[in-house]
């Protein structure tokens, strides 16, 4: 029986400053985050539990970790909503708190955008003569450099990793038709930039292998990083690195919702073998076909388009949900999934209210037509970038959203609430509430523990090994009656 799906999204944002080509992005990111956190409370992230080189296939770590940014004391905070906001490499990164419904994760993903936007405003206020920073929620600078948007899903440790690779690879290759954020041109090392006018995804160009541990070079379709941030005997955290950063809420909703159902089917061995002969080639071919009709050869000899492959997954998901997992959330995912696949089959460009790659394409095509521009024109590349600007006054996605031209699944009010409030049905509730209530006494925090200072000689660790414990239902009363962290710890111990 499949385990409940807990999931979250980590986003590395692009950062730049107009008129400041020598901007140090590491420093700028750190200033951005620490300025935001200044009004909240700064908490050191505890790296004790982290081992990013551990491999899901059971391999030993391949290399020691270099001195990292964290060692330099760069900004790294946990927020009252249970999220983590920090500097990763040369980018500000936001990791949502753990969620259990796709819709809730859409809300928290959008809350991340709002936090970045508010950070910009805080910096402008505190450093009026500082650089004019801009932030982009995308995955490429158009010059061959990519930064990631990673999804994480809780998976049953008992599921063989080979099953995940077999069933998920064709799914990831084909889901691009609705998950892609769209990109002008190509950046694959083997290809001329202008050889592709427009493609479905930001990221496909950067993927070169099928399975592997790397995330920064030779990127694999299936990443094997194995850091569960939970009880490793019971859980795996599947680290999905192949997705794009989505602005459209429907695209994020589908990306998370469909992948979660597919993972449950993997755990319950519900899927047929849909292996693709050459997944990496297929990934690039699908991304480069905005008609969504190109077919890829399967191992069983059939040739299916990405949409047809998605229909295979959908039909199984429909049966699976009926039999095993009939929830309103899953029904909502199925309904949207079906309607998007139907439209992709007949008229992909009709999905400009739902999907990023179509919404962006529509803008580019109209602009290009009006001004008679070539696809290589810098103006079109500028539009591509500006689509992802997180400022609501400047970003083209946000202009479409505010004039009702893309479909929203959330309201501004619930996104604002999620900026400060954790989800109620995962351990993020406990984490976020403790950060709010006992800030002074929290020495360190990680996804699966809090280290607190009760005033005793030694610091105390509060383990949070199960992502589904520490919910509001579990701990609301406990937190209410525990006026300080010492009483919280003594109640937890009794």
């Amino acid at each position, binding site marked *: 029986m499949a385990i409940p799906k807990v999931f979250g999204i980590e986003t*590395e944002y*692009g*950062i*730049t400053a*107009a008129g400041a*080509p020598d901007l140090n*992005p590491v420093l700028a990111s750190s200033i951005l985050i620490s300025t935001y956190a200044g009004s909240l409370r700064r908490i050191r992230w505890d790296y004790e539990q982290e081992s990013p080189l551990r491999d899901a296939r059971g391999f030993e770590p391949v290399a020691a970790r270099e001195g990292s940014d964290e060692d330099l004391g760069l900004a790294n905070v946990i927020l009252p909503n249970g999220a983590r906001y920090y500097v*990763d*490499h*040369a*980018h500000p*990164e936001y990791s949502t708190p753990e969620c259990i419904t796709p819709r809730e994760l859409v809300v928290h993903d959008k809350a991340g955008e709002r936090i970045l936007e508010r950070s910009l405003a805080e910096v402008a206020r505190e450093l009026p003569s500082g650089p004019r920073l801009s932030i982009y929620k995308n995955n*490429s*600078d*158009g*010059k061959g*450099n*990519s*930064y*990631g948007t*990673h999804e994480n899903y809780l998976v049953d440790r008992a599921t063989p990793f080979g099953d995940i690779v077999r069933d998920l690879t064709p799914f990831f290759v084909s889901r691009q038709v609705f998950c892609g954020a769209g990109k002008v041109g190509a950046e694959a090392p083997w290809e001329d930039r202008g*050889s*592709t*006018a*427009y493609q479905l995804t930001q990221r496909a160009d950067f993927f070169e292998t099928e399975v592997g541990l790397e*995330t*920064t070079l030779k990127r694999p379709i299936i990443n094997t990083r194995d850091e569960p941030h939970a009880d490793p005997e019971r859980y795996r955290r599947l680290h999905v*690195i192949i997705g794009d950063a989505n602005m459209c809420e429907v695209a994020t909703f589908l990306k998370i919702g469909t992948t979660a159902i597919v993972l449950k089917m993997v755990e319950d061995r519900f899927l047929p073998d849909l292996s693709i002969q050459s997944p990496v080639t297929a990934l690039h071919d699908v991304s*480069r*076909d*905005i*008609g969504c*009709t*190109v077919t890829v050869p399967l191992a069983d000899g059939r040739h299916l388009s990405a949409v047809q492959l998605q229909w295979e997954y959908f039909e199984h998901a429909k049966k699976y949900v009926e039999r095993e997992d009939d929830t309103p959330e899953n029904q909502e995912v199925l309904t949207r999934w079906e309607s998007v696949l139907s439209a992709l089959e007949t*008229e*992909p*460009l*009709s999905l400009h209210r739902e999907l990023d790659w179509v919404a962006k*394409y*529509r*803008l580019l*095509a*109209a*602009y290009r*037509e*009006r001004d008679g521009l070539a696809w290589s024109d*810098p*103006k079109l*590349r*500028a*539009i591509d*970038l*500006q689509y992802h600007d997180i400022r609501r*006054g*400047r970003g*083209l996605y946000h*202009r*479409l959203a505010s*004039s009702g*031209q893309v479909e929203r699944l959330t309201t501004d009010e619930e996104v604002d609430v999620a900026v400060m409030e954790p989800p109620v049905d995962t351990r993020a509730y406990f984490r976020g509430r403790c950060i709010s209530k006992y800030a002074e006494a929290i020495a360190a925090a990680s996804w699966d523990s809090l280290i607190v200072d009760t005033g005793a000689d030694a610091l105390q660790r509060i383990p949070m090994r199960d992502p589904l414990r520490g919910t509001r239902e579990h701990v609301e009363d406990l937190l209410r009656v525990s006026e300080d962290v010492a009483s919280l710890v003594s109640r937890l111990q009794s």
Partner: protein
Amino acid sequence: MPQEQEQVRPQRKGGGSGDDGSDTDAGQTTAASKAAELKDEMDDILDEIDSVLEENAEEFVKSYVQKGGE
């Protein structure tokens, strides 16, 4: 590949229903006004793009360089 992309260039949406032979006057008028409406909507968006696009698109695009992440 480029040919495939040309095929799916923006369809004049709204014009479609008037082109399929069911050319009653009412149908044509509706389709025409809908098409005009969509064109206005699109013109507004394009004006809006012009209003927020960085002044020097070429310089803006060229200076947007990121270090790889992840």
